């Protein structure tokens, strides 16, 4: 290991350690994530080993690898993953040549939960496929190549994404990346459906194609060699190696350009001055703190790139999932509730969205009442967008499926879900705040990733549980043949949702008011 590589690995380890130091909650969250991931990885490993000899083993292994690679490619665009790794733009000042730097960063990127998970999967895949000495040799190469390609893929995408995010045009483009995830979700959805209807055999053609696409081709190579197809095996392995080389080359070029061109802050300062507006026109918003908070929140949805990206993602997925499903003719009208769920996520980590500017809010909150009005203002700002949007999505879905009788019922369910999301969102904003770093592409500061996941997923599970009474009532109405009474769900669901929101805000407000310094510390990281 060269000194640069060793230094970078050590730097990464200490970054991880520092991220975890100081806060017990964060450490607990990280350890929990680690344990869950390890458990899943171990189960997957065992499952794959058990698959050894099965006719579909190759298909499944290859597809799993491809999906994982896709995950590596997409993750840095949206969520934590990138967070635990070094931000190359921070290293600009160091006299490092790109080549050793890339090598060092690649090795440093291998430290972490994600690579460990990938390693488990790759090892499981080759164990399920390798038969014979030649195949075993191929397997060792394949694991190394697949792992490195995945990591390099993530790094290359992340670097390219920084470049996108630091140019203004790019920032607006990056907003569209939400669509990628939405469509990806559809592909997975579609695949799962096909799988359900016609079994593993249906996936074999997809597996055949994917076994030529790196990094899944490395796993495909092991299968080919096991069957004596040495030429195909070598070709697949070579393909993966070539892809790795190409990725590293792209990454290095992007890095070089990133490190030699002005950074985001300079570019921003050079933006043309915007004049206009501030003539607020007739004020539609309520007076006092409520309207002030709403106005600021809504402005941020439009002007803050991170907030905007999050919103566009939510809006896109919220629309695409129910509509695509309806288009495929297989959709259920209940998918329309998805919009409410996706949009409700925006209530989570409210104070983290403020970044350390939260101090301006903290200085003006001196009682639970202030905190309540603040949170209520934010919830109302959210509702001005989500309420019409969720209604629109529901109506569109209903129209496509032609099931108008179900409209009130689905609307009621949507509103109940939205209310539950707002309630849990408000509460977890107060209880589990975390920072959203503004520089670069990261959405979570080092060491806070586990906290973010737990906050959002725990919240979603809690929201679903809170909705259980309404859902149970819906099911009961259908089961007991009272379908004519399902319109009752609209008033019931709406009232229930509103009550949940109010209760959530009431619970969150005193917590917020007493935890102001702790929240400020939590959202000021990174």
């Amino acid at each position, binding site marked *: 290991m060269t000194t640069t590589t060793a230094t970078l690995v050590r730097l990464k380890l200490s970054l991880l350690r520092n991220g975890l130091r100081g806060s017990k909650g964060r450490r607990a969250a990280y350890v929990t994530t680690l344990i869950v991931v390890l458990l899943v990885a171990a189960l997957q490993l065992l499952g794959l080993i058990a698959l050894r000899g099965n006719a579909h083993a190759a298909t499944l292994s290859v597809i799993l690898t491809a999906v994982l690679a896709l995950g590596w490619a997409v993750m840095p665009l949206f969520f934590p993953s990138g967070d635990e790794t070094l931000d190359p733009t921070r290293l600009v000042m160091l006299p490092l040549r790109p080549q050793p730097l890339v090598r060092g960063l690649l090795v440093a990127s291998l430290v972490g939960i994600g690579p460990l998970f990938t390693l488990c999967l790759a090892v499981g895949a080759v164990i399920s496929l390798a038969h014979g000495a030649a195949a075993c040799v191929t397997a060792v190469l394949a694991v190394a190549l697949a792992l490195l390609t995945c990591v390099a893929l993530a790094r290359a995408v992340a670097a390219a994404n920084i470049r996108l995010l630091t140019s203004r045009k790019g920032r607006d483009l990056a907003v569209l990346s939400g669509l990628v995830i939405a469509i990806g979700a559809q592909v997975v959805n579609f695949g799962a459906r096909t799988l359900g209807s016609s079994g593993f055999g249906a996936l074999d053609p997809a597996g055949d194609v994917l076994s030529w696409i790196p990094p899944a081709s490395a796993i495909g190579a092991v299968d080919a060699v096991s069957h004596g197809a040495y030429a195909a095996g070598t070709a697949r392995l070579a393909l993966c190696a070539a892809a790795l080389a190409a990725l590293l080359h792209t990454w290095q070029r992007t890095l070089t350009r990133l490190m030699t061109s002005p950074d985001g802050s300079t570019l921003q300062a050079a933006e043309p*001055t915007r004049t*206009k507006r501030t003539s607020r026109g007739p004020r539609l918003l309520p*007076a006092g703190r409520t309207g002030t908070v709403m*106005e*600021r929140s809504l402005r941020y949805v439009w*002007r803050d790139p991170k907030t905007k990206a999050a919103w566009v993602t939510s809006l896109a997925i919220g629309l695409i999932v129910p509509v695509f499903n309806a288009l495929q003719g297989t959709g259920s009208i209940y998918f329309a509730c998805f919009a409410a769920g996706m949009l409700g996520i925006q209530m989570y980590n409210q104070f983290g969205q403020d970044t*350390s500017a939260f101090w301006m809010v903290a200085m003006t909150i001196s009682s639970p009442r202030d905190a309540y009005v603040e949170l209520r203002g934010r919830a109302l700002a959210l509702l001005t967008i989500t309420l019409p949007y969720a209604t629109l999505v529901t109506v569109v879905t209903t129209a496509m499926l032609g099931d108008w009788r179900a409209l009130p019922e689905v609307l009621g369910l949507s509103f109940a879900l939205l209310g539950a999301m707002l309630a849990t969102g408000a509460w977890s904003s107060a209880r589990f705040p975390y920072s959203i770093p503004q520089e670069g592409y990261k959405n979570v500061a080092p060491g806070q990733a586990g906290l973010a996941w737990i906050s959002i997923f725990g919240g979603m599970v809690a929201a679903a549980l809170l909705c259980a009474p309404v859902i149970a009532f819906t099911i009961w109405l259908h089961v007991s043949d009272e379908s004519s009474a399902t319109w009752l769900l609209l008033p019931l669901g709406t009232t229930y949702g509103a009550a949940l929101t109010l209760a959530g805000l009431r619970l969150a407000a005193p917590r917020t008011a007493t935890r*102001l310094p702790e929240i400020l510390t939590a959202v000021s990281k990174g």
Partner: protein
Amino acid sequence: MTEVETGAGTPAVRVQDLWKAFGPSVAVAGIDLTLPAGKFIGLVGPNGAGKTTTLSMVTGLLRPDRGTVEVVGRDVWRDPVEVKSRIGVLPEGLRLFERLSGRELLAYTGRLRGLPGDEVDKRAAQLLDVLDLAGAQHKLVVDYSTGMRKKIGLAAALLHNPEVLFLDEPFEGVDPVSAQTIRGVLERYTRSGATVVFSSHVMELVESLCDWVAVIAAGRIRAQGTLADVRGDAPSLQQAFLELVGANGRDMASDLDWLGGAR
């Protein structure tokens, strides 16, 4: 607020036995401080002395490990309603809502403070004028220079006419013209009987501005009193400070004998 509650004798700030540690390192180690009302007060000390940590705890932005803080006679942590409405803060190292324009930021802050809308707009316009920000009032704060940010932060802190103003390094990274503007506004503000507490590591600045000084180093108060008291016999505050922290006359010549020597 009535005269009786904060009679002339009540200090603007009274801090007792204030402690704060970040993990193993102690940033503030038992500070006792009494700052008189109506003065221009400087909290001075080298980088890392604990100025920011102290001011954060005094203004309620950071929870102390131990100790009490009273501002205009009220406990910051037990009586936030009374304290928060009476103080203005310009912290260091924390952001503003940068995706608002300067004018929007003031409108937002003032209304959050509970002032009536038209009063906020009137005061904001005047502050923007006095602080030379009128030309940039519709620009987003994210596009402001350091000096402009400090000025808009100062405007936001002054908007509700606080009794005590806490400024953390208000002149750091600020160009001379902006610095002069800030100075003018602050001097006018203290003449009205209000208190300004500001931190700085630049002795000359503190010496030229303040009439009351507290010297802090390594998390402890080394001296406090009027400028003349703290300076004592020393020719300048800088000298007095170096004597206080015992850094005077440290001989560096022998340590760095290679510097500038044969290459």
